[in-house]
């Protein structure tokens, strides 16, 4: 009897969850729960593949989710040692330690690959409020790597977006986007992001290894891996300042 009740509960809750997640907006809301944190810190490894060559860049990152996103990234590999990025809302600065120089990265330069990778500065700067910028529709459900996924399509409703159209494969159980395709207005596929590994950290399903392929670049891809991920750690807000950038 106890088992029957348990099964009934499971069936009901899964059917409620499934009925609830009927629209694209609902799916996006559930996805946001995984990303609902006040702070995040991690050590990152960015592996840039060019044909058979691989170049590894190490970094450490801290970010604060508030009224505006604040993030500080510092590269620690010998070639880029001490190079820092400061993101305050829509503003981005790079600090080059050798020349003690702080350079603001402006509009069109944001489309460049970050430190030579396939991830643009614009990708890194993007806030999570996709529903404000895109019209979201649930296309269908399909299997991706043996995992059942909702396929949602996002189409831009404002001009100020890096990609006109995006297609996401969202795991029906964990609500993690396992794959994303990013398109230009012409319909040309620009980038493909594949989640290679997710991990449960602090009660959240979080992608910790992502592969980004820029289709405009030949024989090139970037694999980004996050290690030692810690959520909601107490952070000194002063760190996210021009003053700290020069330290």
């Amino acid at each position, binding site marked *: 009897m106890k088992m029957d009740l348990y099964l009934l509960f499971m069936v009901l809750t899964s059917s409620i969850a499934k009925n609830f997640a009927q629209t694209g907006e609902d799916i996006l809301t559930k996805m946001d729960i995984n990303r609902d944190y006040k702070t995040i810190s991690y050590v990152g490894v960015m592996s*840039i593949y*060019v044909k058979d*060559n*691989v*170049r*590894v860049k190490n970094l450490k990152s801290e970010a604060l989710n508030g009224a505006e996103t604040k993030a500080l990234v510092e590269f620690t*590999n*010998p*070639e880029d*040692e*001490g190079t820092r990025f400061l993101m*305050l809302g*829509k*503003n981005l600065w790079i600090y080059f330690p*050798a*020349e*003690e*120089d*702080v*350079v*603001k990265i*402006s*509009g*069109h*330069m944001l*489309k*460049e*690959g970050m430190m*030579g*990778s396939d991830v*643009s500065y614009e990708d890194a700067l993007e806030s999570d409020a996709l529903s404000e910028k895109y019209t979201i529709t649930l296309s269908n459900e399909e299997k991706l790597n043996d995992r059942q996924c909702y396929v949602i399509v996002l189409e831009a409703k404002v001009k100020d977006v890096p990609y006109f159209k995006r297609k996401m494969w969202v795991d029906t159980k964990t609500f993690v986007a396992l794959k994303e395709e990013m398109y230009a207005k012409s319909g040309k596929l620009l980038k493909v992001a594949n989640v290679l590994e997710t991990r449960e950290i602090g009660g959240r399903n979080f992608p910790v290894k992502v592969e980004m392929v*820029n289709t*405009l*670049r*030949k*024989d*090139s891809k970037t694999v980004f891996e996050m290690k030692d991920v810690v959520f909601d750690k107490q952070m000194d807000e*002063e760190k*996210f*300042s*021009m*003053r700290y950038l*020069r*330290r």
Partner: protein
Amino acid sequence: MNKYLIILTITILLSTAAPHAGQQSGMTFNGSMYTDLGLLHTVHSSSKDEADFAGMSLFSLNPKNANRTFGKVECLFDVIVPYGRTITRYVPEIDDSSDADQSLPDYYKIFSFGKTPVLFDLRKLYLSVYLPFADITMGRQIVNFGKGFVFSPIDVFSSVELYDINFRRRGSDIVDILVPFSAMAGIDLICEMPFLDESCSVAAKIYATLFDFDFSAVGIFRNNDKESDFENETVFGLTFKGDAAVGIYGEAVGHYINESKDLSFEGMLGADYSIKDRWYFICEYLYKQHDWTQSIWGEHNIFGSARFRINDITNISASIIYDFEKESTLGIAQFYYNILQNVNTIIYLQGSEAAGGKYLLYSARVEVKF
């Protein structure tokens, strides 16, 4: 120079001592090494051209303390071994010929192998103390007041080394006090050392980010000594950088000679742009109203740079600086290949044409970073 070596030694000894449990401590050491091998082709209009071996090896080390919660000690020095004709660029007294570059700063000669000197160049050595209300930095450091990549009339403390293919900047011996107002605004106060020296200059920069543009206002009092060709002057200026279809930046600088009460203007306007994450362009224009300002440039000057990224490890680039008044040109074309992790090869052609002569340097560099 000996006092710097003593300070450096003490700093390294102190910083490597007393590690704290569970906390990153001690010093971190990063650096690079490269060797340039090339051929210097000197063009003579009245006689036969000359071709000479030219090159150099450079070892650069950058130690700094790992835990920078309360302060920072940083040093950056180069050990340079010039070969062939490059020796005359670094040690002009060896060669009294007219093409020996007298404008280069002094380097400390450690010792010589015959005619080949081994030189020491202290580029940075400073101590920073982080107080709750201000960051105080004392010692040799690079001060970037301006926004220009090559032309920056407001950058009177750290000039660009034009003959360095990476356009590195030289440091100054100063005390810098940075007082923040907010995350994106503050004031930077600078005083040259030694304070009581006749040529001591002082400066203040107020900076802020408004409407997604970086702005700053700068005031500098340059107290030149009696032996200097220049009189005391007050320099004041405005800088900005932001986005308007292309990335734009600029500097407007006024020079006021205190004795003669003459006022002159320098202005720089720059733009950068990228196309399809492959082409990157930078161009700058510098206007200088009078000869007596302490910059080396003529009335109208331009700088242009283009880079084409073949892939993430290979690119080609070219840049040119042209002074319309002196009709002088400095250009560099480079092929860059990241052959292995932290190992780069650069094949470059550097050319210069000015009243003093014309030369072409064909060179290859292998560089390792660690």
